[in-house]
């Protein structure tokens, strides 16, 4: 049970930090083009702290499930054949590059172009990380995991949590800016509303992907090998309530709150409501994704003796 929690924490937090980092980078790119680098940095750089912390927590959680954590550094040595080794390597590189980018950004070290290159590199490695994480589970002995649904859902989780986490982060960043320096807030407010609208749209699209993927996945399980059928039975049976809850929360968070987020982001003056929407959407979807990942691990029925 403890091991399960550790892996849920690690995969969710790591994927969220990759997603957030990617969203941060993309938003920065477009905001910089529209309103200049300074506004873009002002909007996004504080989130880097949160991303680094979240990633750090995730990696700590991954150590928790080891029987012999002091030997963890050895875990990168078998990248020739082991996806787990590759995942850890990618994770370490992503963390290093991400941290480097964060430090360079905060202290404004080096030319912007260098910082951006490092940032994009980190993002790329982040994508590789999520891919490796998915491949770890694509074992021939794990029918419930060994299909396309795993990488697809890992990436949708990454991006969904990424956009909504950043939504919350941008809202918090705006509140902080307004308190500190009310004068510059107006420009940020408009940027914020624009970004939030995009975030809402992307969230709804990703939700749609999930809601299509999941039934297709369940059907493929139910018509698969004996172990896959067992997994399907677990999801429908003992995990059924959890599954229902997961879907409802995701719908509420990304769908309903996403819709309201979009609505409220259309016009100015509704910053307070906007922040509630953003936080609520993020929390609901975060819980939904955690539940989803819990179901992922709990429905494991491997080919084994």
């Amino acid at each position: 049970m403890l091991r399960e929690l550790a892996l849920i924490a690690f995969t969710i937090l790591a994927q969220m930090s990759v997603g957030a980092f990617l969203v941060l980078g993309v938003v920065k790119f477009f905001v910089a083009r529209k309103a200049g680098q300074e506004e873009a940095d002002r909007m996004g750089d504080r989130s880097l702290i949160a991303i680094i912390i979240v990633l750090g927590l995730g990696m700590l959680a991954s150590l928790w499930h080891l029987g012999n954590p002091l030997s963890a550094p050895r875990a990168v040595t078998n990248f020739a054949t082991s996806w787990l080794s590759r995942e850890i390597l990618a994770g370490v590189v992503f963390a290093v590059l991400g941290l480097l980018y964060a430090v360079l950004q905060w202290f404004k070290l080096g030319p912007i172009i260098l910082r951006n290159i490092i940032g994009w590199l980190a993002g790329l490695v982040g994508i590789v990380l999520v891919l490796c994480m998915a491949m770890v589970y694509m074992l021939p002995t794990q029918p419930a995991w060994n299909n396309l649904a795993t990488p697809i859902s890992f990436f949708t989780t990454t991006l969904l949590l990424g956009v909504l986490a950043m939504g919350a982060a941008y809202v918090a960043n705006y509140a902080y800016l307004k308190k500190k320096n009310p004068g510059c807030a107006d420009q940020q407010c408009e940027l914020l509303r624009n970004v939030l609208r995009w975030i809402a749209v992307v969230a709804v699209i990703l939700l749609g992907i999930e809601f299509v993927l999941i039934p297709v996945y369940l059907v493929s399980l139910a018509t698969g090998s004996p172990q896959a059928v067992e997994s399907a039975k677990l999801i429908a049976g003992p995990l059924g309530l959890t599954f229902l809850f997961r879907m409802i929360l995701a719908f509420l968070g990304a769908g309903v709150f996403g819709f309201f987020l979009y609505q409220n982001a259309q016009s100015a003056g509704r910053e307070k409501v906007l922040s509630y929407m953003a936080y609520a959407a993020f929390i609901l979807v975060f819980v939904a994704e955690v539940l989803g990942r819990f179901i992922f691990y709990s429905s494991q029925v491997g080919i084994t003796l």
Partner: protein
Amino acid sequence: MAKQLAFYFDASACTGCKACAMACKDKNNLPVGINWRKVFDYGGGGWIQHPAHPEFMIPNNVFVYSTSTACMHCEKPLCAEACPAKAIFKRDDGVVLIDKDLCIGCRYCEWACPYGAPQFNEELGVMTKCDFCQDYLAQGQNPACVDQCPQRALGFGELDELRQMYGNINAIEPLPSSDISHPAIVITPHKHSQPSGQGTGRIIKLPEV
């Protein structure tokens, strides 16, 4: 020097007595919860009314046979491929071993193995599994399970030679298909043995708590 050591299992002689499993537990001092060698009763069938005398219930293809399985020391050891710390390796003689000093206890090999061979030892914090009694082999002795079997249903040797003597069967229910990891084992089937993946029965044992 052997190329691929393998176990031989005669399912037609195995009574499911688990003396082999206990011999392994004893020799390797395995605690409750860890069994490097396991024995499964696999069976099925049912009871139906006698066609001519409906007041009698008669067995309808009731069958049971037992299977003793340890580590298969696979030709394609998925555990070794999966291990991030290179703690699992395959020797020149085909035996697959876990180096306890390198294992980090991530249990990924446990997910990768189709036979449930690597098992986590909580005391040591590392994975453990059948090592073909490599210390006994080094002294020219047989694995403990082979020597214990009162039915002489277990043997071992060079995989090619075993195949020449006993045939090519390396998978029966409840073992998984041998296509997954190419286990180094030769099996003489029981008359009721069913091919992997086409079983009509189940493992007869208490479900987990």
